[in-house]
């Protein structure tokens, strides 16, 4: 028993500066896995609500307003509805493949998070092929899509699956080229060897005092742009949501799915969005590093920035309280008002806790990482509200004839410029 406690405590030693996986501490690795899993589920629920609300406000409407204050409980109501819905398997479907396909999508999306670095030690483990692992595993989700489309034994899902397989395979190449150019940048150090480790990549940005998006301007920016486009295509989101284009293929590859299995696709899609966004954040936006680490690097700024997480939560709480005040005073709205007030109070409490120095030091890495990823999620929603859908051949044209040559060019130029820098 004592050994066990020691085993648990050994990781909490401030001298341990590695991830639980690297430290070989299975207990903490398990805790991290659970935390990541829970956090992702909450994030997907939040995304669901936010997407509806943001999209609604972009489209001059209110979005969900009935279930809970400002529709806050809507995702939960939806999840319940989906779980209680009948889970159909069409008569002509290949039942095993049909049954298994959603799990592949979800598994692939969640597995990626094994190596996502929320902080220098806040990752489940740090693989030395981290980025390769992420790309590889996230590319497996296309298998689930293809299986779902084929197993449904119906034309629309089949076309959806064909589209998405072609799309994902093509955009992976452009994506890979962009990633490689970022990895090349990690090798601009004394030893001249780069790294594929996710934590290593962020450390390299820290060491070079520059986020890779600004490195070799505009090369880093272009690579980032290529990745940002490819990742939208990779996750089948608007304007590249051809695989599930509802106006053409009704719902594409998941036309025949319902209830729980459909919600797995939903979960997989949103998790994948967060996953690819975290790749982008890690590679180009400095991962967990706070903004302006090189310019504003005095201890004063450090403390100031460490207040930002708490302040953000207080700000959100303030918005809640403002809306509590704006709620109609009719008794009918009493429960809603109380609920919103309680939600605001919870946010405020979290905000206050985040001001405690011990907590804020440990958490601010995670906060910055999450904030950057959240920015990408907002972009996803924004794209959906603004862009019409690409056509399939135009999508391929963009992937193969624009992004791929651009990626190759950036890669070669990055290598050249990097070589010159090392020489000089």
């Amino acid at each position, binding site marked *: 028993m004592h050994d066990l406690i020691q085993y648990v405590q050994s990781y909490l030693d401030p001298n341990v500066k590695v991830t639980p996986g690297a430290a070989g501490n299975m207990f903490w690795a398990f805790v991290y896995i659970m935390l990541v899993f829970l956090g992702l589920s909450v994030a997907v629920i939040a995304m669901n609500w936010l997407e509806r609300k943001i999209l609604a406000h972009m489209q001059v409407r209110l979005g969900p307003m009935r279930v809970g204050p400002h529709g806050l409980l809507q995702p939960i109501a939806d999840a319940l509805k989906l779980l209680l819905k009948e889970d159909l398997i069409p008569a002509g479907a290949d039942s095993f493949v049909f049954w298994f396909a959603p799990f592949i999508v979800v598994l692939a999306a969640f597995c990626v998070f094994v190596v996502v670095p929320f902080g220098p030690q806040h990752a489940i483990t740090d693989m030395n092929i981290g980025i390769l692992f992420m790309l590889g595993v996230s590319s497996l989700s296309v298998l689930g899509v293809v299986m779902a489309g084929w197993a449904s034994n119906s034309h629309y899902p089949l076309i959806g699956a064909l589209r998405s397989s072609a799309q994902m395979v093509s955009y992976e190449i452009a994506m890979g080229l962009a990633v490689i150019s970022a990895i090349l940048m990690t090798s601009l150090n004394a030893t001249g060897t780069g790294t594929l480790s996710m934590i290593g990549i962020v450390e390299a940005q820290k060491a070079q005092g520059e986020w890779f998006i600004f490195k070799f301007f505009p090369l880093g920016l272009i690579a980032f742009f290529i990745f940002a486009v490819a990742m939208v295509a990779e996750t089948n989101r608007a304007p590249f*949501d051809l695989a599930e284009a509802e106006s053409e293929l009704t719902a594409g590859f998941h036309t025949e799915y319902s209830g729980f299995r459909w919600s797995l696709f939903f979960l997989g899609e949103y998790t994948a969005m967060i996953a690819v966004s975290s790749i982008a954040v890690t590679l180009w936006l400095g991962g967990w590093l706070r903004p302006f680490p090189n310019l504003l690097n005095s201890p004063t700024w450090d403390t100031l920035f460490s207040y930002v997480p708490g302040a953000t939560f207080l700000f959100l709480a303030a918005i809640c309280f403002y809306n509590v005040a704006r709620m109609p005073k009719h008794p009918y709205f009493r429960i809603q008002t109380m609920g919103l007030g309680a939600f605001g109070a919870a946010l405020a409490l979290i905000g206050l806790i985040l001001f405690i120095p011990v907590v804020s030091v440990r958490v601010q890495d995670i906060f910055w990482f999450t904030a950057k990823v959240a920015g990408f999620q907002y972009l996803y929603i924004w794209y959906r509200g603004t862009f019409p859908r690409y056509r399939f051949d135009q999508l391929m044209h963009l992937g193969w004839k624009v992004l791929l040559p651009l990626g190759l060019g950036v890669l070669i130029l990055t290598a050249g410029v990097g070589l010159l820098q090392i020489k000089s």
Partner: protein
Amino acid sequence: MPDPTSLSPLDLDTPDKTFLDANELIINMGPQHPATHGVLRVILRLDGEKVLGLECVIGYLHRGVEKIGENRTYAMFNPYVDRMDYVAAVSNGLGYCEAVEKLLAIEAPPRAQHVRVILTELNRLTSHQLWLGTHALDIGAITPLFYTFRDREEILKIFEKYCGARLTTHAFRIGGLQYETYSGFEREVKNFLAFFRPKIDEYEELLTTNRIWLERTRGIGKISAEDCIALGVTGPVLRASGVKWDLRKAQPYANYKNFDFEIPIGENGDTYDRYIVRMAEMRQSVRIIEQAVDALPEGPIMAKVPKVIKPPVGEVYHSIEAPKGELGYFIVSDGSTQPYRVRVRPPSFVNLQALDTMCRGQLVADVIAVIGTLDIVLGEVDR
């Protein structure tokens, strides 16, 4: 395939007969499909994603409007015509009332004509707004739909205030109008125009220069002027192909000849041009409404119409420029209180024939875009 005289014959070298050749796919789109605007059923023959040909199956919404017309009196049939093109009910009513008036050899008084023009053009706006929203939605831009519906609501409010109905208005009567305009009608219409003009710019801002929109619509569903005329296609589709023909100018009805407006035309006859033409048409409609409101004369709103409408024996064909194209009524009277035969020449029905010609050799996604750009209403196609 059903259309042998189609001027673009089936592209015979399309299926690449290589060892990788996949089977041709027959896909049934509709009648329950999010993008077929109702209950249109399209059977597509595909090679991969390329359309080799298609056949429309229609009639799911057939209600026998023409047969009903033979069994109702002239006045009783008036509300039924609203149910054909239900997004442009006022236009339908105008066409029918004018046709019967012609048969009776009477003419609505000037004030009634002005109000008719105002309401019809407002209705053209609602129709085009609905087209824009759904067309953009089909192409994947979900936001314009909500913008257009927000503004369409304002027009529907005017309709509701005028005649108590929003969609199937039954706004006109044979010989003029039943209702005098409500107080503040002119002011509200003017307020709406002032409100709406910047909104058209707003729609255009979302789409006109959007790169993806351009790529999705330019060169898609091209149809030449000759094909349009051969296939009897009218309305904005014909004008986008470069034919400057609008019944409001060519054979003016109501009192359109008193108003100053232009006929916007396109050059290429593709989906983008049709989009531009309809947007320009909305601006022209605003112009017409403005002139009509400014010059709204005083006077009676009803011509001298017998209580029992019994047109003399004879037949008449009258057509108007509905938002979708030429809407014609062919009415045969046998001298009784009921029309002997009412034939409606629906623009959507004839325009839909062009779908095959416009879609051959394009991709599945383009079929959706073309259905959207044809602006069909199945209630009118099937009657």
